[in-house]
């Protein structure tokens, strides 16, 4: 029987705090940039070595030159503004609708039973097929774009919300019930946080689809915005301009993702997916 004397001097562990996390985020940004650079290099080289015709797919340097030229015009920024406005507004409406409907349907099985058939019928109807309807109701202005953007993005988020609501840990749910949380409190404190990872994935999916629809509607019916610019550019003869505008669209998509990701890191700090990647 012997007792070991407590610890010899020990160097204090490196404080792994905000600094390290920022460093990690920084290195991720660098990695993302590296990935993007590789993609850009492929784009630059493919037309240059004749893999594709450079008139069909101009090298990225040409596209960037055109992009810089366009960035000097106010029309370019106006178009971005129009698209972004329709997009974000549409996304906001779709998100709110999807969350409200998704939660109420998930929690009111009766309502759900009555709406399933209609929902399953409406869901696959392509938003593009509704363009004529949108034009009748709203003409070619913002209203049409919004209608279609909301319609398309809604389903993306809605399906995620339903799945998320179904994925609540049963023990957590029982805990809440045992403390007689009101229905609302259960939604607010148990269902909502559990579903949040799903909802955020839904928002990311919806954001992309909303952007796609905003641009497509502008493209097809000529509502003002980036899509209309692309339509005009396409009927012109400068492919690089089309690609410059497409590039702009893509960059908008990346920016939104960065935003949602940042929100995710904050909101889902507790979730297995995030906490595993935060240094311990």
């Amino acid at each position, binding site marked *: 029987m012997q007792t070991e004397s407590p610890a010899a001097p020990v160097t204090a562990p490196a404080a792994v705090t905000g600094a390290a996390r920022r460093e990690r985020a920084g290195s991720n940004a660098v990695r993302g940039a590296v990935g993007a650079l590789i993609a850009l290099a492929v784009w630059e080289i493919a037309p240059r070595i004749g893999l594709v015709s450079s008139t069909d797919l101009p090298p990225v340097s040409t596209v960037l030159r055109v992009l810089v030229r366009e960035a000097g015009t106010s029309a370019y920024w106006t178009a971005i503004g129009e698209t972004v406005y329709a997009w974000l507004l549409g996304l906001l409406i779709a998100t709110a609708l999807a969350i409200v409907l998704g939660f109420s349907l998930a929690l009111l099985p009766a309502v759900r*039973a009555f709406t*399933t058939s209609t929902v399953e019928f409406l869901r696959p109807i392509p938003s593009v097929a509704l363009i004529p309807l949108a034009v009748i109701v709203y003409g070619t202005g913002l209203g049409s774009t919004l209608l279609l953007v909301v319609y398309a993005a809604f389903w993306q988020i809605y399906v995620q919300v339903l799945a998320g609501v179904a994925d609540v840990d049963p023990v957590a749910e029982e805990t809440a019930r045992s403390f007689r949380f009101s229905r609302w409190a259960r939604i607010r404190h148990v269902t909502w946080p559990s579903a949040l990872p799903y909802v955020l994935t839904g928002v990311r999916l919806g954001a992309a689809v909303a952007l796609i629809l905003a641009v497509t509607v502008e493209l097809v019916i000529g509502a003002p915005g980036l899509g209309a610019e692309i339509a005009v550019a396409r009927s012109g003869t400068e492919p690089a301009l089309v690609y410059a505008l*497409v590039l702009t669209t893509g960059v908008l998509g990346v920016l*939104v993702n960065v935003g949602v990701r940042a929100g995710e890191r904050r909101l889902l700090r507790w979730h*297995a997916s995030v906490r595993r990647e935060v240094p311990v």
Partner: protein
Amino acid sequence: MSLVLKPLRWFLLPVILIGVWWAASAGGQNFYLPTPDAVVRAFGPTWTPATLRADVLPSVVRLLAGFAIAGLVGVAAGTAIGLSPRLRAYSEPVLEFLRAVPPPVLIPVVMLFAGIDNTMKVTVIVFGCVWPVLLNTIEGVRAVDPVLDEVCRAYRISGLTRLRTLVLRGASPQIMTGLRQALAIAIILMVISEMFAASSGLGFTIVQFQRGYAIPEMWTGIILLGLLGILLAGLFGLAERVILRWYFGLRRAARDGGN
């Protein structure tokens, strides 16, 4: 009681909606909104067995091919990316970029590489509907229970077995959600892809009707799309019930006492 209620649940809302439609379209002032009976009357002549075979079948085949490829690619890539934070960091901006590119402007680019035939259309479908699968797989894989992960590591369950029994199974509820979304998008993209360089197909036919001002016929096409969607969603639900039996069982067990 439930014998009456069940069908009622299914049909009540659609019946109300059709009623609303009827009221809105009655009088026929609006050229673009025909009455439901006009649409129903147009259905038979428009969708004969011959047109179904010529226009709907190729579309559905392309749709299923695209969906299957997107499912495979999405799950495979999603698993790889979900498992490796490093890979995710490298690829995320590029993927997000590609995801944000609208398929209609992408189609010309795809045509450069994949031609204008089925390959192009399937490529477009794959390109568009791979995202929900990919994203959901990534998130599902990331969220695999840490304790189970440790069990696998402790028993040195690695490689394919780990993938099959832990990663994919753990992520399967979310993967199925992604696939469900992808199915709906695949239908949308089937239509979009057939708006370009097509000479047959359901989407093509709908657009033709729309351009030719054959409005009731156009609506029959849209309704057919909806029916196709219901059918596919139903089949998907069956598959899901089999694949996620443990999951539904687990939830039901927990809810057994629920009110």
